């Protein structure tokens, strides 16, 4: 920072990511409200704590190994390069005792960049949390939270959401605002758990007909979704590099024009993604309202699914493309959700697999058609965006890094009776004991007041 412009650029970038972190906190508040609102009264506090405690657990494990994985695994390792590809110095610096992990005056960006990625990790884990409410053990959920938050999402980001990732280089994978690398993997992870965990008691009739377990507080659910929309602004802008010059990128871009880029260092603008965010949200809400015939939960969820469906290409889409893709993605996820529920007896309590998994998968694939032939990177030798590269990428996100690891871990936990709460606890409610104590305390107070009155 030895010149005024260098200082301004650095401090602007530092402050930019810091703001995204503060905004992304709202995603987590939204998820907590949404889950508690969707759960029944007898499970409220356990539902809240199950989600809340992923914050410290994913944070410490992100410090221990999640951040290092991101910088170490871009080449596979062993596909396009070894550990630390394409710059081994980053992986060396970001081991937990490395020189990049503590406060230092000559590096003002790593801390806020680390935190922005961490908030993505919380989001991925929190998406899974809603699907499994009211019957999973807290210990089990936190194992899954660490799995996706600090291991599998970090691997998928290294592979498909970094300037040197092998999926970008070989497949031309493009997923600018994380349709696949956050949402599809989280949906796949949730589905992998749900297959083993099973539905809530009473969810399906004896003949297999699904029953609608209504949210305890639909209003809280909708406000939670509104807060997720708000936090999503932070998520979107955190996916960008706010200001960078061609010399720093070091690719094929010529001239001296400074630009905003995606995580792949491909140019875009904050204006482009702002308009596309709003148009895809609108497409999702319009279709969500239509297919659900005005149901508030699915209309709000449709807005979220609309953004997620368009996110892979929202750096480049025309706003009308974003609108239509958002709408189509919402219709796709809504139809698939109820088909899967009926056919496979999957109890996805908040529609997380649908809104994030199916819409995210759809978003990655559709980007392959709409952006066909667009360069995926400013660097020479990288594949262009194609439908088959995007389809392969979607499969890797949803199934290979999402469903399979979660399914395997769920089977292991289930084998040791550490996955699902006892049937009696599920019937009584996870908060039964504390509710009973609270009621007894209330009765004591009432009795003493009556005594004082008489």
């Amino acid at each position: 920072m030895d010149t005024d412009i260098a200082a301004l650029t650095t401090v602007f970038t530092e402050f930019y990511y810091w703001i995204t972190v503060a905004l992304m906190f709202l995603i987590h508040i939204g998820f907590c409200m949404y889950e508690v609102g969707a759960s029944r009264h007898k499970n409220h506090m356990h539902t809240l704590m199950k989600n809340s405690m992923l914050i410290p657990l994913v944070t410490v494990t992100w410090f221990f190994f999640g951040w290092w994985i991101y910088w170490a695994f871009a080449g596979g390792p062993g596909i396009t390069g070894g550990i630390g590809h394409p710059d081994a110095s980053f992986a060396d610096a970001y081991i937990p005792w490395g020189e990049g992990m503590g406060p230092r005056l000559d590096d003002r960006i790593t801390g806020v960049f680390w935190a922005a990625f961490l908030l993505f990790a919380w989001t991925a884990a929190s998406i899974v949390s809603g699907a499994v409410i009211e019957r999973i053990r807290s210990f089990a959920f936190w194992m899954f939270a660490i799995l996706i938050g600090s291991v599998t999402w970090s691997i998928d980001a290294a592979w498909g959401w970094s300037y040197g990732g092998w999926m970008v280089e070989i497949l031309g994978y493009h997923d600018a605002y994380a349709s696949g690398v956050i949402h599809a993997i989280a949906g796949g992870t949730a589905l992998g758990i749900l297959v083993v965990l099973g539905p809530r008691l009473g969810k399906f009739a004896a003949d297999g007909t699904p029953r609608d377990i209504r949210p305890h507080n639909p209003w809280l659910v909708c406000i939670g979704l509104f807060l997720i929309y708000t936090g999503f602004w932070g998520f979107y802008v955190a996916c960008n590099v706010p200001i960078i010059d061609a010399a720093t990128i070091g690719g094929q871009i010529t001239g001296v024009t400074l630009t905003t880029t995606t995580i792949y260092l491909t140019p875009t603008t904050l204006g482009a993604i702002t308009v596309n965010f709003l148009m895809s949200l609108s497409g999702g809400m319009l279709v969500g309202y239509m297919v659900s015939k005005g149901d508030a939960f699915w209309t709000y969820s449709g807005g979220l699914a609309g953004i997620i469906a368009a996110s892979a290409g929202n750096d480049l889409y025309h706003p009308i493309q974003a609108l239509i893709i958002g709408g189509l993605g919402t219709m796709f996820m809504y139809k698939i959700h109820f088909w899967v529920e009926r056919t496979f007896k999957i109890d996805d309590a908040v529609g997380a697999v649908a809104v994030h998994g199916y819409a995210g998968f759809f978003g990655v694939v559709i980007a392959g058609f709409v952006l066909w032939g667009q360069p995926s990177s400013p660097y020479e030798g990288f594949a262009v965006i194609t439908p088959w590269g995007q389809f392969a990428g979607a499969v890797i996100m949803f199934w290979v890094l999402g469903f399979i690891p979660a399914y395997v871990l769920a089977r292991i936990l289930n084998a040791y009776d550490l996955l699902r709460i006892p049937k009696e606890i599920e019937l009584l409610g996870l908060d039964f004991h504390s509710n009973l104590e609270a009621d007894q305390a209330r009765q004591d107070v009432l009795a003493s007041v009556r005594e004082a009155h008489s």
Partner: protein
Amino acid sequence: MSTTPIDTWAVDLADVTLIYPWVGSEVAMFWIAVVLWLAWHIWQVKHENAEYVDQVQKHGDSETIRKAIDND
């Protein structure tokens, strides 16, 4: 004498890098943190399992469960 690498601020900031205490003990701090993290999980899973066993013993009779379902 300082626990950090900074003894004085009468320096050119361009020469300052690390500013936290006990530089050189990062590996030891890491392992302490890992042990604390794992110990927390061990405590938590034992506590959670014991809580379920206790609650089933205290409230798991069919009458209490029936009332709880009816009040659901």
